[in-house]
């Protein structure tokens, strides 16, 4: 789709290793993106930032879906990504509404303040 002359990559062994991108590369990258999102969900207190980290995790999963869709020459993976994005939009709308309600009740968006359900 987007073409660029990459023959120069073959001129040195170190650069040649950068030249061939496989499905395995994409799966490892998707796990790294998911892990960054997971780190954000565990370490942050701001509910808005936690929601953003969740979106990052969903994106990591989407990347694996598209990579395997390409690997198996099957478009169903991309259709699934479409549904993931639709569900993520619905989830963001409801979660942000909950955050606004939380801010009204607690006067802040720190999840440490919302402890009513703690036994």
């Amino acid at each position, binding site marked *: 789709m987007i073409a660029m002359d990459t023959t120069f990559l073959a001129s040195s062994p170190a650069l040649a290793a950068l030249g061939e*991108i496989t499905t395995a590369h994409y799966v490892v990258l998707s*796990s790294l*993106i998911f892990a960054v999102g997971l780190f954000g969900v565990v370490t942050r*207190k701001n509910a808005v930032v936690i929601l953003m980290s969740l*979106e990052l995790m969903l994106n990591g999963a989407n990347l694996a879906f598209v990579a395997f869709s390409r690997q198996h020459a099957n478009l169903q993976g991309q*259709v699934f*990504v479409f549904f993931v994005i639709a569900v993520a939009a*619905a989830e963001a709308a409801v979660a942000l509404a909950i955050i606004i309600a939380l801010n009204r009740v607690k006067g802040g968006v720190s999840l440490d303040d919302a402890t009513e359900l703690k036994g």
Partner: protein
Amino acid sequence: MDPWTFWLGGALALGGGLLTVTRRNAVASVMWLIVAFVGMSTLFLGMDAGFIGVIQVLVYAGAIMVLFLFVIMLLNLTPSGLLRIDRPRWTTLGLASAAAFVALILAIVTGGELWTAGGGDEEAILQATGRDTLIEGGVLDVADQLFNAHVLPFEVASVLLLVAVVGAVALTKRKL
């Protein structure tokens, strides 16, 4: 597959994501998340998934992140209040769980067929699937799947979005 879309998109997505979860100001996090989403879109376009690459920018970077900015604005938190609640905690736990997840995926990938069969480069995929060209996820191709094989899930998704809209209004309105 062009290597430069992978390295550029991967660097943007990973760098943007790291900055998103480490910035203490939520507005800065939103901006870096938009950078990460543009990187994801580059990766999708590099895999010939044109439709997904475009809706990634339109829906995620465009619509959803603007919604986030609106809510941060609406919450009207003072800068000092924003920073005070955002002192990170459980950093060790976060690092450990993230590292464990990556290690798990690495173990699965390096131990599996994907690794031994050349990791699924273009020639290996063409040989395994018996096709002349790789698939392309253009609008027409994805629409054909969506409106023929997956009509019911598509309609259910529209109902889900409707329920989410009603739910968001019900949650935020003071008097119904």
